[in-house]
């Protein structure tokens, strides 16, 4: 797992670690719903129930807090995706992965998008440390998709010469763009269509 450099800034007491975790979890929730730009440190203080001095004890400023949010969100997303994709070796399995993402997003009518993708949109141009951490996290996620495609090659469901890394990147592009379409429409239908089309195109390679 990659890190934006804030995972273990210094040795913390159990109580200190708990306080820090509470701050980061509250910040992650706020930034997911409101976006990084619309979340202030005062908002985080209020939502986490800590004092401002406690927040500044753990984080020098907003950039440091955002990097910790990137680490936490990345850990959550990669763990979820490792569970979901780790044993997938069929197109039907990939479609079940698609169904799960779309269904989960439907619970919120697609309102907030992908937690990791939203952070990428918000910080990529403003903080190079966070950008590089997010780049690594997306590489890890795309690697999980590429591993699925390699297993499909192993069973003959995809041609041996299919460019799996490029296809995995394309599939991630369709997924992230699908989240954005759902967010704009407040409806997950276009997200579902986007991933369906990408999967159909990958599946069509087997018939070439």
């Amino acid at each position: 797992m990659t890190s934006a450099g804030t995972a273990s800034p210094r040795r913390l007491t159990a109580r200190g670690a708990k306080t820090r975790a509470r701050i980061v979890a509250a910040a992650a929730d706020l930034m997911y719903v409101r976006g990084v730009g619309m979340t202030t440190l005062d908002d985080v203080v209020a939502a986490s129930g800590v004092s401002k001095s406690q927040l500044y004890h753990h984080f020098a400023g907003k950039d440091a807090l955002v990097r910790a949010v990137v680490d936490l969100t990345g850990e959550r997303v990669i763990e979820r995706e490792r569970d979901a994709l780790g044993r997938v070796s069929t197109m039907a399995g990939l479609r079940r992965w698609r169904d799960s993402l779309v269904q989960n997003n439907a619970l919120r009518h697609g309102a907030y998008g992908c937690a990791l993708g939203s952070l990428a949109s918000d910080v990529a141009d403003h903080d190079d440390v966070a950008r590089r951490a997010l780049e690594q996290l997306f590489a890890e996620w795309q690697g999980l998709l590429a591993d699925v495609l390699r297993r499909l090659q192993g069973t003959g469901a995809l041609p041996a010469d299919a460019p799996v890394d490029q296809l995995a990147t394309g599939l991630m592009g369709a997924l992230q763009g699908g989240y954005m379409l759902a967010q704009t429409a407040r409806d997950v239908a276009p997200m579902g269509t986007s991933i369906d089309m990408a999967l159909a195109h990958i599946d069509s390679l087997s018939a070439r």
Partner: protein
Amino acid sequence: MHADFAEVLAHEARSLAAVTDVGHLDGWRHRLVAHVMAPQSAYAKALRSDGEPAARAAFLDQWHDLLATTLVRVLGPGPAAGPATDVHRTALLIVAAVHGGAVLSRLTQDAGPLSASLELALGPFLRTAGRGPGSTGSGGALGTMAS
């Protein structure tokens, strides 16, 4: 409407009106990548902008419609069945691929992810349309994706 949205749509309307075959469409795809990767372009700004939800929705709808109209023209007359030639769903995937690919390319600071996203979105259509009647038969680099 957001000025960058309007500028992109005006540019796309002109560019796509000139697309009549798969070779032109392939060229449009490569020019689009260049526009999006130029940090100060209207494309880059429009794709980064949150914008008003209604303005963004109108922008996406209009770009989708321009693309779908273009795909119908490139496909030409005659039977063409299958997912690759469903122009509305293909246009939707292209719009998604531009946005999703742009986010990934901003992270890597490289055009590769955007190109890969557009390749997956557009490649099957170009390969299928490139085999149809009235086509120039040019699928650009797309036909080589899985070879």
